[in-house]
């Protein structure tokens, strides 16, 4: 008999050795696939920070801080008179740790007036709250988890786990023979399956095996559990279990481990959980779907209270504590999707594209990276909140079909090109077609600033006050049909100062201007501003027949808003690896790509767009004192409605249109501009205070002619900026009649040259053969060669 047993044991022993190897390689060799976690920017608190009370409270709510009467535990806050008391959470950043602090914050007039240490009353220069986790990048098997080290697991959670799942955990050797016997008896006698699995067995089951429930698998599971228990510390096995266990479903995403479940269900780090919350989570293990507190709150409550009863019964907590805990509501937060796209799918999309350039997909889903982005949740939320409302209003007002208008928007900072918010469509938080990144649309008049900027780089010919001709223009290229773009209002406006031609977005004047400076040079300017495509330099480009995504347009306007320094738009600041190791930084870079003086002049003209042009609506919608600059854009048949504008702290681009490219029925100013205003108003932008470059001087000019103001004639002059050395050199004439004749060259000036009146002929036509068009200009020779320019001149 003994021999027989021994003979049977030899193959079993060999088998176990095999299993042991398997476990060793699996348990140790298999690194946890730890999904990358993505964070927003963190809120900086300091005296003078532009953070209103509403904004601060919203941030705290997002971060899952609890409002209490006395904030004496981590992650709580209270309002006390005009003060906001806050017990912040510690957090490890790229550049060091931010400790837990007790803060006393005062907010007044929409900004923080002081930040003090609550205990000492000592002023604190600067505090950073932890960033908001906005998503994770998990692998194809959809398992998402936040890894906890054994020390991170609260004692109460360990006790509850053991009490509920495996009371003899610390005593058995991986399996619990008594438990198995009990389960076997129950299965045989009562015909009911009952679990006799230890925590170790459950882990093995989850970790190594398929979920088949037959004897062979059970035996293998038991053997592996024994081996696992023999080889590893109880604490480590328990931690592995706490990280492995499946606790819920979020769409495709599987919620694994208590670390993630705590955030998923309660919106707080695991260290801040109370006993009732722990009981709820541990209760979930048995059947995560049946006891899902969001879908089946009644079941969940029953289960939680049962767990609490058992805890009291076993003496883990007192009867009194159990009673109090049982009286509490479930305390589950509204589901915030933090998965693949998370709450900010459009922004996450941008982050992932940027990451994909530098990382392999496996790195992102398994290396436990922490990615710090530039998203400002407040800006994003404010923008989202106002977009849909306005779209619905527009549809109603204009009698447009409901639900067809789509929208895209991007908000960035002007000086360092950080992307604060991305709106990919009218449905916020919906991970569909990301129009902000992927909708390539004609940009219409948004291209015009590039035309005018090209001209203004030619100070010998063009200044803001230069008179342009806005009469009918016909372009005919050899062999093709003629093209005669008209103005939006189908009127000719005769002589208009350059500044007004941009402000009112006159097409005829712009085409003339663009043809004169050369379409190829306009393309060059577009490239300098940040356009990446290579459009054909056709005249139609001057009116925006060029396709771009809202993102690309934002890059162009960022360059303008920063005074000519292009900063490649960034959504990521830093990437940290495991153990808080800094891996990669995406530093701030800037590059001057267009000269300061002309950009300044352009920005002034773009302010006129708001004060006197197509965007006057902003004057009533937002405070006049903001001095906003911007440009509307409309494409043929009202297919696309654009507005791009900036303050000193935001560059914002909005597109409104339809996915099927049918007419949307909105111009730039009746559509996108309204959305822009709604989005920006609650953000309380700072006034645009343009830095005047050293290359700028001012002169009083006669607004009608663009010549120097002549006090003899009476009337009022206006002060206009010019590039130094290029102010007008001729006084205005008092007789105004002749001004009716088109004269594009009047007001343009050349340094050191004062050629009297001979530069215009008697009909008021420009003299192209003379020197009036600044023959030093590099583009001027091209002008006569490109055919189109020749034609253009012939029509004068």
């Amino acid at each position, binding site marked *: 008999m003994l021999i027989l*047993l021994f003979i*049977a*044991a030899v193959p*079993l022993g060999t088998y*176990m050795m095999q299993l*042991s190897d398997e476990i*060793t390689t699996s*348990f*140790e060799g298999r*690194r*946890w696939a*730890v999904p990358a976690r993505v964070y927003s920017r963190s809120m*900086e608190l*300091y005296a*003078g920070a532009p953070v209103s009370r509403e904004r601060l409270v919203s941030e705290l709510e997002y971060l899952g801080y609890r409002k209490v009467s006395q904030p004496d535990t981590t992650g709580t806050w209270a309002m006390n008179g005009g003060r906001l008391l806050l017990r912040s959470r510690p957090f490890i950043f790229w550049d060091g740790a931010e400790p837990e602090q007790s803060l006393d914050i005062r907010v007044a007039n929409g900004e923080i007036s002081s930040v003090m240490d609550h205990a000492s009353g000592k002023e604190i*220069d*600067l505090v950073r709250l932890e960033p908001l986790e906005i998503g994770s990048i998990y692998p194809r098997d959809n398992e998402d988890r936040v890894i*906890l080290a*054994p020390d991170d697991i609260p004692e109460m959670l360990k006790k509850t786990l053991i009490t509920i799942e495996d009371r003899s955990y610390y005593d058995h*050797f991986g399996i619990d*023979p008594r438990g198995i016997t009990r389960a076997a008896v129950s299965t045989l006698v009562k015909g009911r399956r009952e679990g006799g699995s230890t925590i170790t067995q459950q882990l093995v089951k989850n970790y190594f095996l398929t979920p088949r429930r037959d004897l062979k698998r059970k035996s293998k599971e038991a053997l592996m559990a024994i081996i696992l228990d*023999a080889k*590893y*510390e109880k604490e*480590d*096995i328990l931690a*592995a279990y706490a990280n492995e266990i499946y606790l819920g479903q979020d769409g495709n995403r599987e919620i694994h481990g208590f670390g993630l479940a705590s955030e998923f269900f309660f919106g707080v780090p695991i260290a801040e959980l109370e006993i009732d919350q722990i009981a709820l989570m541990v209760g979930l293990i048995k059947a995560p779907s049946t006891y899902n507190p969001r879908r089946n709150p009644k079941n969940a409550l029953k289960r939680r209270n049962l767990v609490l009863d058992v805890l009291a019964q076993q003496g883990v907590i007192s009867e009194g504590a159990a009673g109090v805990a049982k009286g509490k509501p479930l305390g589950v937060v509204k589901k915030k999707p933090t998965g693949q796209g998370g709450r900010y799918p459009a922004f996450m999309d*941008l982050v992932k*594209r*940027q990451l*994909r*350039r*530098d*990382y*392999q997909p496996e790195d992102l889903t398994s*290396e*436990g*990276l922490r990615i710090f982005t530039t998203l400002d949740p407040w800006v994003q939320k404010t923008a989202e909140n106002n977009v849909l409302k306005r779209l619905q209003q527009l549809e109603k007002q204009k009698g447009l079909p409901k639900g067809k208008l789509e929208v895209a928007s991007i908000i960035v900072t*002007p*000086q*360092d090109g*950080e992307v604060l918010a991305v709106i990919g469509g009218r449905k916020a938080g919906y991970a569909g077609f990301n129009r902000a*990144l992927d909708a390539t649309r004609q940009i219409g008049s948004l291209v015009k600033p590039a035309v005018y900027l090209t001209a203004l780089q030619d100070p010998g010919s063009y200044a803001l006050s230069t008179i342009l001709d806005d009469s009918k223009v016909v372009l005919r290229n050899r062999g093709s049909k003629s093209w005669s773009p008209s103005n939006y209002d189908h009127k000719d406006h005769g002589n208009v100062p350059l500044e007004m031609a941009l402000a009112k977005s006159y097409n005829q004047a712009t085409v003339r201007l663009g043809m004169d400076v050369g379409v190829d040079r306009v393309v060059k300017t577009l490239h300098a501003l940040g356009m990446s495509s290579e459009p054909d330099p056709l005249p139609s480009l001057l009116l925006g027949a060029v396709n771009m995504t809202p*993102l690309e347009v934002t890059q162009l306007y960022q360059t303008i808003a920063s*005074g000519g*320094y292009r900063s*490649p*738009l960034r959504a990521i600041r*830093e990437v940290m*690896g*495991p153990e808080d190791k*800094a891996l*990669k*930084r*995406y*530093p701030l*870079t*800037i*590059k*001057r790509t267009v000269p300061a003086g002309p950009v300044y002049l352009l920005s002034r003209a773009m302010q006129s767009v708001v004060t006197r042009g197509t965007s006057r609506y902003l004057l009533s919608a937002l405070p006049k004192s903001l001095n906003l600059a911007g440009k509307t854009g409309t494409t043929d048949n009202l297919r696309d409605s654009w507005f791009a504008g900036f303050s000193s702290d935001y560059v914002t681009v909005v597109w409104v249109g339809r996915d099927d490219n049918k007419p949307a029925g909105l111009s730039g100013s009746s559509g996108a501009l309204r959305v822009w205003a709604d989005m920006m108003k609650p953000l309380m932008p700072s006034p645009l205070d343009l830095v005047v470059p050293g290359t700028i001087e001012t002169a009083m000019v006669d607004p009608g002619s663009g010549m120097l103001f002549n006090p003899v004639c009476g009337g009022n002059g206006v002060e206009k900026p010019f590039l130094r050395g290029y102010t007008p050199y001729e006084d205005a004439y008092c007789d105004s009649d002749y001004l009716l004749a088109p004269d594009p060259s009047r007001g343009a000036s050349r340094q050191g040259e004062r050629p009297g009146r001979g530069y215009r002929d008697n009909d008021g036509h420009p003299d192209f053969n003379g020197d009036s068009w600044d023959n030093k200009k590099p583009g001027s020779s091209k002008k006569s060669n490109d055919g189109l320019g020749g034609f253009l001149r012939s029509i004068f």
Partner: protein
Amino acid sequence: MKILIVLALLLFVIQLTGCTNSTPRVKPAPVYQHGERVGGGSTSALEMPEIGTEEGGEYGEEQGEEYRVSELDSEVPQAPTESPVTDLSSNSLRGGGEQVAYAGSAGTGASMGKAAKSLLDKAESQQQAGDLSGAASTLERAVRIEPRNPLLWNRLANVRLQQGHSDLAVEFASKSSEFAGSDEGLKQNNFQIIDMANSPR
């Protein structure tokens, strides 16, 4: 059944103690074993050159490179001190190891809030300790708080120059000067940075 298990266990224990290839019990569970550092470099199908650091290759900072101290180290000009005038005369382009004092707000023509000031101080001590990447990161954080403060851009230029990122140093210094208003001392210092960045090494 029970006997079998005990026997198997016995055999297993023998195997554990007898075999040399088994791993000792002290080894921690894989929970704390983290992956190696993630390498950069792979290019992808991303066709959006406007996003991200265009000059990523050039300025993209992996820590390893970041801490390399460039030869320019000893040539970085001093930032203006309390009195720009005296600083100009004593501007001897001293060793980079020496620290430069923060120019008083009276001198820069731009006042600086306490928050930005605390970061400026931090950046200076980081720079002093040779943590140039840290200094740059801290200064960028300060720039987010005060994007138009010329001194911050100047310091950023200074750090970039020390790192050998000459092109970027020139851009930052120019930007600083544009925000500098009438602060001639600061502008002068920016000129020096630009000069140095442009001079052949």
